[in-house]
């Protein structure tokens, strides 16, 4: 398939719909699986990797998984296209940076993605908009069952599904939600919340994983253990904590509106103003400002902006997306292009961009 068709669409998980979508951006479930007859990827020879890739690609194509899938040969993609897929959350950074035969099968809605030869031979992922962990789990179960009919997943009666890293063994399941928590950040309660999550063995990370600071107040919460509990229990473990976090964030937003109305309105308006007028702007700043505007829209402080637009801008202003959207003229820097793209998007904010009046 051609990636260009993806450039101009947005994934289902960015629609900004679904339950609690003012706070829950997306719900995701992934399963780690390996073929019993090949070494794990890090130990596999080039030939092993090629054989694994071919076997999985062909067998997956031979069964109905509920969706029509397109296959992308990641091993032969240019770096920018691999980064594009990472930004899109269709493949992981590890998968993008890996060596040898590998690929990803995705459906048109970008809900289902099957990574071949990531850390494990197969990583199945289902991502839904808003809070819909059970929907994502129900969908991934079907995909997993169908594939299991045509391959032998490495399995041990005591240890369950066998994975390259012992942290995934057993169910191989990772259940996560991506939350937008700007008010908890502004009111400085976020660290406290995270410490309590660590205590009940849930992991927290930023939008694009990767150590350090979460960009734009987006956080992923996921289960840390995969063995000793059923998949349903692990889905429920994450599902149980989400309403609590939603409640904290809502209260923090109410507090902000009630106690600092002027201040928060000012912050949000300034953020919106910068996005519409800046001449050069970094990725980090863009995410930070979009986060504030997103909250402003949800609090009714900014009209005429749609949540799905903001969600999609969060992805489209990432470096690889921007480069693909703007084409490669290579003259101006990313930050200038990003600012130009934003101004055009919020057209009218910049008087010089009013060339095409209707």
């Amino acid at each position, binding site marked *: 398939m051609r990636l260009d068709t993806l450039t101009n669409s947005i994934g289902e998980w960015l629609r900004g719909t679904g339950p609690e979508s003012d706070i829950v951006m997306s719900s995701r479930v992934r399963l780690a699986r390996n073929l*019993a*007859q*090949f*070494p*794990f990827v*890090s*130990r596999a020879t080039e030939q092993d990797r090629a054989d694994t890739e071919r076997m999985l690609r062909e*067998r997956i194509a*031979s*069964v109905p998984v509920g969706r029509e899938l397109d296959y992308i040969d990641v091993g032969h993609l240019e770096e920018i296209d691999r980064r594009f897929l990472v930004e899109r959350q269709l493949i992981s*950074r*590890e998968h993008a940076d890996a060596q040898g035969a590998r690929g990803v099968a995705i459906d048109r809605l970008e809900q289902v993605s099957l990574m071949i030869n990531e*850390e494990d031979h197969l990583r199945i992922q289902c991502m839904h908009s808003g809070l819909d962990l059970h929907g994502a789990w129900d969908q991934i179960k079907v995909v*997993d*069952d169908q594939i*299991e*009919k*045509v*391959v*032998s*997943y*490495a*399995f*041990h*009666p*005591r*240890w*369950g599904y*066998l994975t*390259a*890293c*012992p*942290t*995934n*063994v*057993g169910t191989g*399941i*990772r259940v996560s939600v991506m939350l937008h928590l700007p008010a908890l950040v502004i009111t400085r309660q976020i*660290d406290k919340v*995270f410490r309590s*999550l*660590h205590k009940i*063995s849930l*992991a*927290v*990370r*930023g939008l694009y*994983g*990767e*150590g*350090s600071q979460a960009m734009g107040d987006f956080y992923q919460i*996921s289960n*840390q*253990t*995969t*063995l*000793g*509990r*059923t*998949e349903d229990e692990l889905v429920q473990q994450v599902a149980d904590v989400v309403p609590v976090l939603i409640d904290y964030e809502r209260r923090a937003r109410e507090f902000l509106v009630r106690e600092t109305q002027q201040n928060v309105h000012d912050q949000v308006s300034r953020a919106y103003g910068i996005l519409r007028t800046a001449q050069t702007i970094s990725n980090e700043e863009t995410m930070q400002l979009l986060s504030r505007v997103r909250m402003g829209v949800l609090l009714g402080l900014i009209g005429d902006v749609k949540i799905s637009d903001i969600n999609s801008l969060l992805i489209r202003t990432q470096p690889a997306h921007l480069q693909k959207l703007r084409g490669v003229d290579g003259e101006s820097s990313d930050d200038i292009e990003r600012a130009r793209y934003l101004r055009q998007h919020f057209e009218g904010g910049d008087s010089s961009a009013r060339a095409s009046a209707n």
Partner: protein
Amino acid sequence: MWRLRWNRIDRADVCGDAMKCQQCDNPAVFHITELEAGNVREVHLCEDHARTYLNQSEGADPEGSSSAEGGSSKGSGLSTPLGVGQTADDLAVLDQRCCDMCGITFFEFRNQGRLGCPHDYIQFEAELEPLIANIHGATEHTGRRPSRQVPIAADEKFGTDGLTAIIGLRRGMKDAISREDYESAKEARDEIRAIEEAWAPPSGGATGQSGGTGEGKA
């Protein structure tokens, strides 16, 4: 005693990103699990402190308790590298052990934090058990199982290990070819084929199965 190094922080699956070095404010990028006689201790360090820590413990005198104190920058209570009752020799022996199928040594595993093949869970079961218990707080899978019935041989082979045996056979075949021992290579190849046929999926498979599938679709 041995240690397992998780040195890929980007797999935040393992630890949340909020984690800081235990010795300073930098982010912890090394997550070291120390195992001794079933006891587990975790150490989270930045790159610099991890290097110091690992050098200290690696270079330490196995029996000695009062040596190597000189360094003033020595961390508080961090370095108790070798456990009582286990010598460096024991560790060396364990490190040399390797998987019959993929050939990975225990040393390679604990350095990379990634296993070599599914059989490692059987080969190194005793060593992995305390580690897995520490990570998951459990040692028994209670979730879904493959719906397709897997043949379980009468001997000690459970789950899909019979199919995983192919990994060892493939290595053996390669070795035989490089020795120009074509007889052994052919035997290994035939064995691989027999196993593959026995495990071929019921319908979409390439080979005729003994257990007929009733899907008469022409």
